[in-house]
């Protein structure tokens, strides 16, 4: 079973293409690739995002996660494969294009300007205005009110929207960015490593907002390198390694242990053990690594045998 077969299984809820009556995804990638000069950053990545579902993209540093979201967010353009929005093939020229198509991205650095007040950040790039022609001015009071209300709905009780956003905690800033995307009618919400710099408690808060956005009917793309954060909230998991997809699973087809094992990369651990062995000495460390390799391969083996025709594709 490959990724395309999964696509047919987990259908968009009730949503059909008006012409062919086949289900379409909110967003889908088919064998998308990208290279910078002669460096291949991403190749043959296939995934889908549906309303009210969370698609997790997992991978270590340099796995191509950032390139993937930059393509979807319109910062870069793919040069192979097909990107479809509601079944329609698209290629974004700028982040504005992607935003207009309903794709909002919450970046790792959050795309907030630290010195600016919260309300100015909230409406940055999409300011509300009143008046005509050259006398058009911002509707400041309305923007402040909306900011307070939207943030309250996400469960953040702010003291003062005039505060520079740089004074908020990491989790709070994350939530402002999510609330902003939700308010501006995002259909697809991309979260780039939202929990990377956060402690356990703050991460929990952010995961709750992810679920809240999902329950509002958004399709969420959650990018992370932590399977423990991805597994509880995700509906689908795409695993990337060195710019390639090493697996695309539905939640019912995979367990947290398998996901972790895939992420940790049993082969790499074995290689590490081999290296240690070659150098000689340090028997204690070697034994530990070997034990770990054994553990990891065991889990992967079990996973493979329990699923005949696993959804893994390389």
């Amino acid at each position, binding site marked *: 079973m490959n990724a395309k077969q999964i696509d047919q299984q987990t259908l968009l809820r009730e949503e059909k293409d008006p012409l062919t009556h086949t289900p379409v995804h909110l967003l889908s990638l088919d064998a998308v690739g990208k290279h910078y000069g002669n460096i291949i950053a991403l190749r043959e990545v296939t995934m889908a995002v549906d309303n009210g579902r969370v698609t997790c993209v997992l991978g270590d540093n340099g796995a191509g996660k950032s390139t993937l979201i930059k393509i979807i*967010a319109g*910062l870069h353009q793919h040069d192979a494969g097909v990107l479809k929005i509601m079944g329609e093939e698209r290629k974004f020229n700028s*982040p*504005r294009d992607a*935003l207009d198509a309903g794709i909002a*991205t919450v*970046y790792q*650095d*959050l*795309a*907030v*300007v*630290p*010195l*600016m007040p919260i309300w*100015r950040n909230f*409406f*940055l*790039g*999409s*300011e509300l*205005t009143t008046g005509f022609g050259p006398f*058009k*001015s*911002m509707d*400041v009071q309305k923007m*402040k009110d909306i900011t307070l209300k939207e943030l309250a709905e996400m469960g953040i009780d702010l*003291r*003062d929207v*005039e505060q*520079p956003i740089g*004074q908020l905690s990491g989790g709070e800033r994350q939530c402002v960015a999510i609330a902003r995307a939700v308010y501006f009618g995002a259909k697809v919400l991309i979260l780039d490593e939202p929990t990377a710099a956060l402690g356990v408690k703050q991460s929990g808060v952010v995961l709750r907002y992810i679920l809240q956005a999902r329950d509002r009917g958004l399709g969420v793309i959650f990018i992370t390198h932590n399977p423990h954060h991805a597994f509880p909230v995700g509906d689908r998991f795409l695993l990337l390694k060195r710019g390639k997809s090493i697996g695309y699973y539905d939640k019912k087809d995979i367990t947290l242990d398998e996901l972790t094992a895939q992420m940790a990369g049993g082969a790499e651990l074995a290689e590490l053990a081999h290296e240690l062995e070659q150098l000689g000495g340090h028997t204690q460390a070697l034994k530990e690594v070997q034990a770990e390799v054994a553990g990891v391969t065991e889990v992967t083996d079990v996973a493979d045998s329990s699923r005949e025709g696993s959804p893994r594709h390389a």
Partner: protein
Amino acid sequence: MANTATLPPAPASAPGDERIGRRSPIQKFLGRPEVGALVGAVVLFIFFASVSGTFTQPNALATILYGSSTIGIMAVGVSLLMIGGEFDLSTGVAVISSALTASLFSWNFSLNAWVGVLLALVVSLGIGFINGWILVKTKLPSFIVTLATFLMLTGLNLALTRLIGGSVSSPSISKLDGFDSAHAVFASSISIGGVEVKITVFFWIFLVAVASWVLLRTKVGNWIFAVGGDANAARAVGVPVTKTKIGLFMAVGFCGWILGMHNLFAFDAVQSGEGVGNEFLYIIAAVIGGCLLTGGYGSAVGGAIGAFIFGMANKGIVYAQWNPDWFKFFLGLMLLLATIVNLIVKRRAELK
């Protein structure tokens, strides 16, 4: 009082939460970017008023305001640009380029002075556009780009003036049609209660008002803060970063055009070698006024107060009958003190 005109607007009182009660209006006021400059301006005013009897007389104040306005008009554009995260080192000579364009063109073809004025506007905006365009295309620091335009314009000013007019000074245009009306627009005085106030003072106040409104109340203002604060973040949320930056350089060009026209029509000729070094005065005014060198923070009113401090120090030394050699020393000291006060006040206010 002259300096009441440049007072910042009182911070708006927002209906609040009980948790923000601790932050009193005074603390909010202290958190504004121009506070350091305002304190400096008041201290300097009191100081000169006490050492010189003539300093506070209406005529002297009008002279000080005129001196301030010739810096202040440019400081408006330069402040906005600095908030937008960029520098312009070519402003000083660009002012002269604008004046030379107007005078040489209309003199050479014996045209109405207004034709030259309009051409100068196009050239000034064009210089701003080229600065901005090279900056966004090459992504070089604005220091380098505008240093290059500064040198090129300095050379062009000297070479073209000699080539066309045959001298280091542009030829007199006082006989041309339209000179008198242009003089009335750019270099006349308006009498207020018997005191002759130069028209540039009103241009200055008007520009500060417009710039403040744009900065605080329009979306373009929001974009200016954003491109200066974090250009990548701004781009990611859909702010037209390129257009904003080029627009800012063109706004500086526009301010340069007004000042250039004043320089030309206040007399009837311009020295082609003038203007070098003035760019620093504009930048100093903006920095004293609380604009952050790294961008993203500041105000147009602050730049105006900075220019006013400059004007007071410049003329105050004369009224106090000191040797004007001391002026630069004072300016340096003011710059240092104002920026330190800004820094302390800002940190204090943000911690509260």
